[in-house]
């Protein structure tokens, strides 16, 4: 196992983890704001990715003629708006009625129903096994960076990592440095107090749902462009984001993002690194989806933080 391969695994893992992290930040923020778990984030991402695909390239094969940067930017912009709208609608139409009734089972049922409805609609509208989202920049024309020992880093991976970190920094700035972010953290730590001091709590929560929806969509587009996407891509991304959020105990955004980076590296490692002496079944591509989720479950089972645990009165 060469050093080059390790670097390749770590960097590509960080890139994937950054994408999970952006979705996970939104997932955790929504929990801390409303005590609701938004099961449908992944499906919103999936829906928006396919919206991007339709606008950027149509449903046919990607060719030089229909894949232009300008068209991609337009598509991504529309998808971001759609993601924000879907996030806000999720709160206003689907979740709020149940939150007001205090019906936990209701919002759980409603969010998973929405997730499956989006999945079903995608599967019905996009019958091919997989589609290819065009690249925002012509990465395929650039040569991969060689790391020695046969390991390479495609420029696309660096772009995903860079864009992911940039978006995370932007999210961090918005959530900690702006008036909006301070108001949101006031609501998350003490909703009633925030209301008493005159914050428009309901509007802030709606805005937070919209912002996290857009953030998740941005993550999805960055993470999936240039590669094959299936109708299940968004869902699997959402599940890994949930696993990352659980690893961090749905804590502060920075913590969640770091946990997601680790999870990404973990995934890249079990997929990319072959451990001599173990059968290929144990460590290989088959574990790409199973591994991170099982890791999240095992960690939660063994070391659940006080944020997840039921308090003993």
């Amino acid at each position, binding site marked *: 196992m060469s050093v080059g391969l390790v670097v390749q695994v770590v960097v590509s893992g960080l890139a994937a983890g950054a994408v999970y992290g952006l979705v996970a930040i939104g997932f955790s923020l929504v929990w801390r704001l409303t005590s609701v778990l938004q099961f449908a984030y992944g499906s919103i991402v999936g829906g928006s990715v396919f919206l991007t695909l339709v606008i950027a390239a149509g449903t046919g094969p990607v060719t030089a003629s229909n894949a232009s940067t300008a068209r991609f930017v337009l598509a991504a912009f529309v998808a971001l708006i759609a993601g924000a709208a879907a996030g806000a609608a999720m709160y206003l139409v*689907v979740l709020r009625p149940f939150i007001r009734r205090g019906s936990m089972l209701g919002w759980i049922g409603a969010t998973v129903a929405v997730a499956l409805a989006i999945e079903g609609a995608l599967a019905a509208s996009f019958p091919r096994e997989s589609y290819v989202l065009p690249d925002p920049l012509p990465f395929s024309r650039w040569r991969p960076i060689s790391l020695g020992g046969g390991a390479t880093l495609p420029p696309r991976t660096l772009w995903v990592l860079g864009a992911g970190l940039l978006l995370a920094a932007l999210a961090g700035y918005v959530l900690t440095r702006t008036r909006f972010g301070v108001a949101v953290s006031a609501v998350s730590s003490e909703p009633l107090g925030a209301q008493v001091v005159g914050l428009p709590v309901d509007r802030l929560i709606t805005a937070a749902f919209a912002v996290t929806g857009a953030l998740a969509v941005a993550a999805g587009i960055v993470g999936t462009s240039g590669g094959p996407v299936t109708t299940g891509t968004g869902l699997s991304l959402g599940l890994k984001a949930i696993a990352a959020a659980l690893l961090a105990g749905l804590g502060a955004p920075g913590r969640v993002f770091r946990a997601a980076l680790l999870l990404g590296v973990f995934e890249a490692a079990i997929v990319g690194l072959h451990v001599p002496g173990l059968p290929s079944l144990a460590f290989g591509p088959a574990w790409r989806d199973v591994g991170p989720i099982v890791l999240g479950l095992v960690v939660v089972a063994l070391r659940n933080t006080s944020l997840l645990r039921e308090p003993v009165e």
Partner: protein
Amino acid sequence: MRDVRDDVLALAVAVAATIPLFVHRGDVLTEGAKILLLLLAAMGLNIAMGYAGSPSLGQGGFAAVGAYGVAILVGKDGWDPVAAVLAATAIAAVVAWAVAVGVARLRPPFVALTTWLFAWAVAFAIGAFPALTGGDRGIPVGQPALGLRSIGVHVRPGPPAYFEIALAAVAGGLVLHTNLIRRAGAALAAVRTDASAARAAGVPVEAVRIRSLTAAGAIGGLAGALLVLNAGVADPSSYGPLLSVKLFVVVLLGGVARRLGPAAGLVAVLAISALAAGAAHVFGSSATDVEPIAAAAVLGSLLLFGTDGLIPSLERRARPSPRSFDAAPASIPTVHGGAVRADGIRVSFGGVVALAGCSIDAAPGTCHAIVGPNGSGKTTLLRVLGGAVAPDSGTVRLDGFALTPAGPHRRARDGIVRTLQRTVVQERTSTIDFVAAGVEATQASAFAYAALATPGSRAERALTVRRARRAIGAVGLEGAESIPMGSLNSADQRLLQIARAIASGPRVLLLDEPSAGFGRAAERRLIDVVTMLRDRGMTVIVVEHNLRVVRQVADRVSVLDAGTLIAEGTPVEVERDPAVQAAYLGGFADSMAARATMARPSRRGGAGPGARRTRRV
């Protein structure tokens, strides 16, 4: 105890059992068996999600474990189908137990989240290892013959007896359900509606959740295994997360914790699916388009009809008007009170020191009051005595034996039970069922015995009812046994908390501000109840702000201030103590006598019962 509804159900099952004698079409019987097996899986889920309040989205995952277990054993390893079903169910039960142990301590929403992840992990694993699971094509098993037919005896024409087996399983499930509710229903309801209160009353909440999730998973696994044999193939799309959601919605739509909820919910979901399929047909869509439409329709109906479910909405009756009770407390048999001694108790939460080395010594059969200003650590001390908080250092002894901080339910077994500061109300629960949870908490009979209605558990049930009645009488609420708790007035509801605590016959009773929100009359009743309990030998340790009550019930008083014991003695001695007066009134000692009741801001901010209890005099 004979319920006419049981007979109606038995009749319905008997009628259904005759269907295969008239209907010989294989596809109809196979479809019927499939629906019955879905019902079985939903009934299993209802135990965890409905009765025990653990919202599991993992039922489809457990069904998948059972399904693929049986498919691999029968289809690949050539096992006998019956043995394979049993083995697959056992595997599902073990997996469910492992998941349950992992999630039992989590807040309920995270139970939903983790079980959802589990269901997906199972689904991904099935897709990831096609060599084992057959990938998208699944594993064919070909409807193997079971029972008599496997030895060549044909009782009826048509496919193998899966319809009858499924019906028998559903009937068995109904019987188990019924027994479970009648014998452990109160404890389950307590866990479901207020886990904290259930814990304080001594219910082993985590154990109840683990058992119910395991039972649900095992039943889900059985249903999955039988579904595969009935369908003749284990195909990946029929099990897993989609099935989880379907079953979740079925239970939710029908009404959680209702015996017939799953059946009603399944009928509703099948009707919605049929309507959606019809609509899709009208608009010329293909069958795959039906799924989102059906999901949206289910969601819409949830939003429209609320989430109480079909069965409860049929049952809803006018709420009885509030009634008041004012009986004298009926005496209880003599109790062998425990000697409680705590030494050097230190508790800190993060950097905040709640108790800085407190000691308390309550003699058997006495009433010991703990008083002190807000934030002085009274409730924390009570929680330590009750086993809810593990102290950083210090020991709690009962009759000289050190108690380990192993949780409130272990304390309850040792004979120490606590009430909470807030009033726990289960609106629609009858008072006797509310109180019975306290008895069921400490009974030896486990879940499984209750479900099987063993003679031992029957005897325990009779004892439970007797003890619950006696406890209700002991707090002066005789005659209130069958009315819903929501129609008691607030003082009676509060006295009922004490009834629940004493129902299991504890030797030590820990009361946290029992008089909060009481007027003079209710105060009098409380004093009578506590005095009676003490006179019968029970050791009572009470945290109380109302010094008028303290003066009348307490033999000894411990005064806490900022986590330390500042005085100890009889009520009269303590009230004269200058340190106590300074701590309480900060120089306004003269007004002490005039202000017998201290104002107390609510611990729980905002609306709710806590806010209403605050009283200024």
